[in-house]
């Protein structure tokens, strides 16, 4: 029985799932907007939100907790200096999931997961 068991397996082993979550979280921090399947977007959301909450308080401890999941030092710096401060006054809900409809090939429901207040710099890069 799967009573009260939460979380999706996404057809992967535990290690593969963990790697996927980390990779997707990294992509979201880098690009601020990522297109994936709806299932992955929903699965990743609470994980990314917890990481952002960590990044709101810039202490050595918070950075180390964050670095357990994301090792890229430059990225950690960027998240703590740009993304964390942006959400000082937002009590969670830093991300938004937009449904896009189904994908050709396997009919998977696609979605965009994006940060709620995106950096104008990254937005400009996208449009060029």
């Amino acid at each position, binding site marked *: 029985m799967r009573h009260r068991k939460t979380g999706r397996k996404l057809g992967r082993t535990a290690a593969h799932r963990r790697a996927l979550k980390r990779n997707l979280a990294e992509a979201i921090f880098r690009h601020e907007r990522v297109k994936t399947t709806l299932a992955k977007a929903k699965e990743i959301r609470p994980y990314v939100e917890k990481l952002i909450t960590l990044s709101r308080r810039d202490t050595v401890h918070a950075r180390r907790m964050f670095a357990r999941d994301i090792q890229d030092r430059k990225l950690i710096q960027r998240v703590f200096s740009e993304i964390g401060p942006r959400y000082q006054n937002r009590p969670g809900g830093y991300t938004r999931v*937009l*449904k896009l*409809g189904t994908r050709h090939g396997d009919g998977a429901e696609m979605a*965009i997961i994006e940060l709620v207040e995106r950096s104008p710099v990254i937005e400009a890069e996208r449009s060029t």
Partner: protein
Amino acid sequence: MAVPKRRTSKSRRDKRRTHWVLNAPATNPCPKCAKPRLPHRVCPHCGYYKDNQVLEVKES
């Protein structure tokens, strides 16, 4: 072993299949471009969702 006594007639077989129907998905007109769009999805025609929130540029 349990086994059918009679072959299913064409009539009976076809009557059983009267409930095999597909329904078109429910769509709503897009508030921006008025083309049919699935509810709670970004409009595939104009790329808008809610308050003129433009997403994904249309190609071709």
